[in-house]
């Protein structure tokens, strides 16, 4: 069925990213004219973008015959896709005003940037996960946890904006549509704990693979991944102990997410080096 579709994976992903960016611009324009955007319109645009992105990732998966998480382009697309999926799950349940707007912005930025940098979409040998379902589960869970951390970063940014408005006595525009600081803070805390649980599960599944194939996991990737996980774990522990709350918690969540995103490129490079240095291992695992 996928063979009958006339557009390529990249084109579908490009349309998806364009729709996300359009949704974000629609939100910006609404805020500029000081009117709340219609939620249904934002939701519809995000569904449109999500469908095209799902199609693009499916086409890409069919091309490589596996989960499309083989290079930074695919990882970025997958994070953006998971972020929007999480918005569909969380947004309506918690009635987080403006989360759709911020989600569209971040998803558009991630997906759009990945499309604009050709180097990120370099070819890689098929069967990169060696047909091992545990490592595919590890990758999918890890990316999903990154999407959760992206949502935490967005909620934290919303908290900082609302707090800035309250401290500086500003009320018009963006501020009036945001949730209360206490609700945003509580939301960020719960999502962060869930994200850390998901990332921990991803690491446990990854550890099973690493124990069996230590030569296939670069030390740099392992170190950075553990650093990201430890960073988030420390934040969660400090938060539960109430030693890191509200503003500092929000700043830490945003900072850690930027670090996690920035670490993807060197981690991917290290993995590519291993892949090119040890082609025989890949063939064996295939």
């Amino acid at each position, binding site marked *: 069925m996928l063979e009958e579709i006339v557009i390529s994976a990249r084109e579908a992903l490009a349309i998806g990213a364009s729709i996300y960016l359009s949704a974000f611009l629609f939100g910006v324009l609404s805020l500029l004219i000081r009117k709340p955007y219609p939620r249904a319109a934002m939701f519809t645009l995000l569904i449109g973008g999500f469908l095209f992105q799902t199609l693009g990732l499916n086409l890409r998966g069919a091309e490589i015959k596996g989960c499309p998480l083989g290079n930074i382009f695919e990882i970025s697309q997958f994070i953006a896709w998971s972020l929007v999926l999480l918005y569909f799950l969380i947004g309506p349940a918690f009635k987080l005003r403006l989360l759709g707007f911020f989600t569209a912005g971040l998803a558009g930025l991630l997906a759009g940037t990945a499309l604009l940098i050709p180097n990120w979409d370099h070819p890689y040998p098929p069967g990169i996960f060696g047909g091992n379902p545990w490592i595919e589960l590890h990758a999918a869970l890890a990316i999903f946890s990154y999407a959760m951390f992206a949502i935490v970063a967005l909620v934290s940014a919303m908290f900082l904006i609302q707090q800035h408005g*309250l401290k500086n*006595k500003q009320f018009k525009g963006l501020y009036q549509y945001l949730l*209360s*600081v*206490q609700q945003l803070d509580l939301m960020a805390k719960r999502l962060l704990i869930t994200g850390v649980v998901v990332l921990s599960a991803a690491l446990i599944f990854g550890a099973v693979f690493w124990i069996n194939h230590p030569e296939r996991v670069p030390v740099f990737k392992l170190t950075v991944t553990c650093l990201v996980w430890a960073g988030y774990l420390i934040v969660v522990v400090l938060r539960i102990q109430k*030693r890191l709350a*509200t503003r*500092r918690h929000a700043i830490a969540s945003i900072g850690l997410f930027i670090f996690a995103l920035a670490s993807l490129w060197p981690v991917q490079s290290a993995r590519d080096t291993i892949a090119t240095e040890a082609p025989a291992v890949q063939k064996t695992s295939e």
Partner: protein
Amino acid sequence: MSEVLQSLFVLGCTHHQAPLEVRERMALTPENAAALRQELHALDDIHECIVVNTCNRVEVYGLSATPTVEATVRDYLCARNGVSRELLDAHSSWHTNLDALQHAFEVSSGLDSQIVGETDILGQMKNAYADARAANCTGIVLNRLFEKSFQAAKAARTQTGITRGQVSIGNVAVDLANRIFGHLRDSRVLLIGSGDVAEKTAQSLKSRGVADITVASRTYENSHTLAHSLGGAAIELSDFAAQLKRFDIVISSTAAPGLILDRDTLAAALKQRPDRPFFLIDVALPRDIDSTVNKLENAYLYNLDDLSNIANENLEQRKAEIDRARTILKSHAWNLWLQLRRRTLMATRLES
């Protein structure tokens, strides 16, 4: 009488000329306001006198035969509240005759108020007038001026929509509380002092379903009475600092000359509940809460000026109605001015 009419005056220090820091230095206690009125009225130069003293204005209305009375009134006001003449001169206005009439009408109708169109000022004007009249400090001109100003205020309110869309301090406080806490069902309110604005704010919060309201006041009986009317509990004023951590919203409105809540006390309370914000509303003048507490994480402090600015955010939409009200008041002021002039001319002819 023609000389007298030429010297109808009002000296005012209001939110238009003076920021909060200056207004709190200018503020008079009710006793001082009455004493100032008596002092001025006792002067040979001043025939009639009314002092209007609210949290946003100190105004002296008077009638004098002496054109140089301005300096005298200013000196007496400075002596009474202990501020320098330079400070008063920099933050005050002086109106005479028709301007004074127009000003009194705008004050009574709420057009000159910090929250444009509010109705509390009319009651405060009536009280100031009643006090002065009871103390025999008013005469034919100020009686007529104030009574006509009340009528003009009523006309402006009924013939225009100046009160429509007007937001009260209580509503602003509720909106802010929603932006801080989301819903208010778990929020606990502490009311320090028993000022009118604070009581109304507490009532607004109560109507939105806050968990409970506690009142702390200098006199326990006052606390108890107010707490009873709000369906809450009363505590001793000396206990409030120790119990501060239990509350989420603090409304302070005491007549204390200094700070009631300092930064260290609040910081200690915040330490015991680091993930819960404090919403502090200071509607006292002089202020009760140290303004630097707003720098503490999780503390959100709003004073009278902040709340009024928010309440006036929709002023632009109400501008047409405000202009209409001003036109009505101008016509009332002009009519009164002509009446007073006519009486003066008749009196002069009769005298000659």
